[in-house]
């Protein structure tokens, strides 16, 4: 692996975005940052800023308003980027999938690379999903 490719795997910076989720998955994402799971040892840092991020960690189903926001943020993330959908809500709409304002899963708006199922998702599964995303990131140009 080239230096840059190796560095991409070793230094994944995350943008965590919550669509209209119930916050269950968000709490699990933040739990990953605590000393118990400590994802910082993999170089993962939660950047609040799309322009600094590599991995978009998205929770919750997409509704009309957040579709617009999500598209805006996705465009601000520079390539190469991967999108990780956390939770069943992000995949298909989950418990909210029939609501009047819900459009469905995240892939209705932006292309998704990794789906992490669960309601709510365990931190170990989130880490697993991010590692899978990193492997995809490493193979990008």
């Amino acid at each position: 692996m080239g230096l840059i490719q190796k560095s991409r795997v070793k230094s994944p910076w995350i943008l965590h975005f919550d669509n209209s989720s119930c916050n269950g998955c968000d709490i699990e994402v933040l739990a990953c940052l605590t000393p118990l799971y400590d994802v910082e040892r993999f170089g993962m840092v939660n950047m609040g800023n799309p322009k600094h991020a590599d991995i978009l960690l998205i929770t919750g189903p997409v509704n009309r308003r957040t579709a617009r926001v999500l598209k805006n943020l996705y465009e601000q993330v520079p390539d190469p980027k991967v999108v990780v959908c956390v939770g069943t809500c992000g995949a298909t709409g989950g418990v909210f999938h029939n609501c009047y304002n819900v459009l469905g899963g995240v892939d209705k708006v932006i292309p998704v690379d990794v789906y992490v199922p669960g309601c709510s998702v365990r931190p170990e599964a989130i880490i697993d999903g991010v590692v899978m995303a990193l492997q995809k990131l490493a193979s990008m140009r």
Partner: protein
Amino acid sequence: MMINQLLLVFVVLVGAPIVGGLLFGIDRKITARMQGRYGPPIIQPFYDFFKLLGKEHIAVSKLQFVWIYGYLVFMIASLIFLVLKSDFLLLVFLLGFAAVSLVLGGFSTKSPYAHFGANRELMQIMAYEPILLLLAIAIYAQNGSFLISEIFKHDKPLLFTLWPLFLAVLYVLTIKMRKSPFDIATSHHGHQEIVKGVTTEYSGPYFALFHLAEWYEIILLLGIIALFWTNPLWVGILIALAAFIMELFIDNIAARLTVSWMVRLSWSVGLILGIANIAYIYLTKGVS
């Protein structure tokens, strides 16, 4: 003479970012251990740097490039001035130009978060700049010259006579290293209060340049602290590293203060220490 200096400059230009990056890696490791975690590997900053280099070029304004290069080049110029043992006062002014460039980089777009960050960064400059300038005058008062080479010629370390200013310079170190309680304009890793502040709109390779400039900056700051004990120089370097470790402790103990508290504290405590120091030297030594 010239060749020696050029060689020294080259070594510093190449070696300083490496040492600086490692210092930042050690910073993150020790912080993690203090928080009961494992923490990233020590060479993590280099992984971050190369990853950023590989990102797509995006920008919000052409002016961003100008100011980030200004920040980097003037930071390198200040470090070269330190290494070539030139004029300390001019070094402080060059460092000021670097800091102003960063602020203007934050101002180079109409972005709300960059706007707050840039104004806060300007307040940070206002907080620490008087202390550095007073240090320059104190060095002159003690040695009769502003040249750093003169500091090396004296046997007695500056720390003995300039210890109040040493304490004030530790304030400066906290602010410049962006450690709590003064990590106000753009905080490291994980703080999202103002979404990265000054560096919000920077991404990819230009953000990597920002990190590179930070690595030069930490070597420059530790070098300035090392000036307090130049005979032998390794004691000064040890003191600098001890100050660095102490900053990590302070960072993990303290909560962030507001901008007005930062300015108040540095303009009261810092200025009192600095002015008292200079007054004492003036009254005991007179003007040489």
